[in-house]
């Protein structure tokens, strides 16, 4: 969280869930590729820069979601890229009801093999994977020079 940008908007989890529940009860009601075992749930939302970041689970998708503090002007479908700890991910601007968000698809449709517990585990594991930097490349064993000069020191440069 950046302390220079007060105040931070409240956690949008409830608003996201309300917007998607309205979509589920409205236009998605008779769509046959839903996974009926799944609820609408915002999972693990947290502050990330000037935005809330987390995962969104519904019967028809599991997405990563970014809710920026300032509503972006871009039309739904406009691409955007964000550098996250795991690397650069591609997002698309979207509107869920009145909410402007950016989404990154992880799974859609959600196969019937996912029950609620499985889908929640999937979403949580995806968040972990996104927020964990990739492992650094393996280093060679410590040489005598490195031991004497301090690891990583390059005395000739």
């Amino acid at each position, binding site marked *: 969280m950046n302390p220079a940008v007060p105040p931070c908007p409240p956690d949008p989890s409830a608003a996201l869930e309300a917007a998607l529940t309205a979509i589920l009860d409205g*236009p998605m009601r008779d769509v046959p590729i839903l996974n009926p075992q799944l609820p609408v749930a915002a999972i693990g939302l947290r502050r990330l820069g000037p935005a809330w970041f987390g995962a969104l689970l519904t019967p028809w998708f599991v997405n*990563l979601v970014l809710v920026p503090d300032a509503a972006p002007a871009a039309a739904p479908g406009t691409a955007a890229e964000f550098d996250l700890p795991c690397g650069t*991910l591609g997002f698309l601007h979207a509107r869920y009801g009145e909410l402007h968000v950016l989404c990154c698809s992880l799974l859609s449709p959600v196969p019937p093999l996912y029950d609620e517990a499985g889908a929640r585990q999937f979403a949580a594991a995806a968040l972990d994977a996104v927020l964990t930097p990739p492992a650094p490349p393996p280093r060679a064993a410590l040489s005598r020079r490195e031991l004497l000069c301090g690891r990583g020191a390059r005395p000739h440069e």
Partner: protein
Amino acid sequence: MAEIETFYEVMRRQGITRRSFLKFCSLTAAALGLSPARAAEIAAAMEQKPRTPVLWLHGLECTCCSESFIRAGHPLAKDVVLSMLSLDYDDTLMASAGHHAEAILEEVMTKYKGNYILAVEGNPSLNMDGMSCIVGGKPFVEQLKHVAKDCKAIIAWGACASWGCVQAARPNPTQAVPVHKVITDKPIIKVPGCPPIAEVMTGVITYMLTFDRLPELDRQGRPKMFYGQRIHDKCYRRPHFDAGQFAEAFDDDGARKGYCLYKLGCKGPTTYNACSTVRWNEGTSFPIQSGHGCIGCSEDGFWDKGSFYDRLTNIQQFGVEQNADRVGATAAGVVGAAVAAHAAVSAVTRARVKHVQTDERREDR
């Protein structure tokens, strides 16, 4: 046929500058999802290694794969890659014909025994001893078996060679079969699509020619770098699907607003291809962008899966993708924590951005 020469020599002979060549190498690295550092590796391989001959056979097909290939976005892709191919054997593109052409085929097979790549466009028919497709006076299935005998690997271009396509659709009167049903003892890279995207074709063949190995394949034999995601995963209309905004008819308000085409039969949710990222005609557009749903042309048996305008209704077919090699159920019928975690990591990996520099490609014209 000319003496063994490198890709670079072929290219310079065509008057292509070194600057342009290096740009081609970096574009190819980007298209293949490799880091920019690998562009130097591609350049070095193309400069130093003798070219690998490619023999391009045509069975039952419509030549749309060739049409797509020769329209590859980067001018060098078609000039360089095509010059490596057409010098040898491609009965649509080569200059020679008749006995002379067939002699070239034999010459390459002898000279490069075990070291040439066989690209197959179209497929063999087995009915009436293969009489439905005759090349050079013999059934194509015989030519295919003959040329495949000493090849290093086979590229199956398009839906025909990969899955069978329209000629293998029910009732399949000619008994057309995909290449892997006839050739079982060689590695086969499937590059499905009707046709495949030009950049995907040149990307696959450049990778094989420069690195001298097969690209990483999924469990169905498709290069993961291009067939790792469904159209739906990266479709720019996807936010409308998520928000329940659908076009219900081709001329309704939803269609005009660019809503999701699922209800008009779009097969994007079940189709693995790079159309929504690489796009077509130098990255200009793809079917969904022009207002029509995906017909799923890169999927097995797409002609026999009902109308192009039928809605997808069945999600039972979706397995759990732990990675591209393992799709499967569990004994209990639900995914456990470990499987869910694997699938999640795999999904995040697929969602990472590959930079294909379309603007640079245009600038180079």
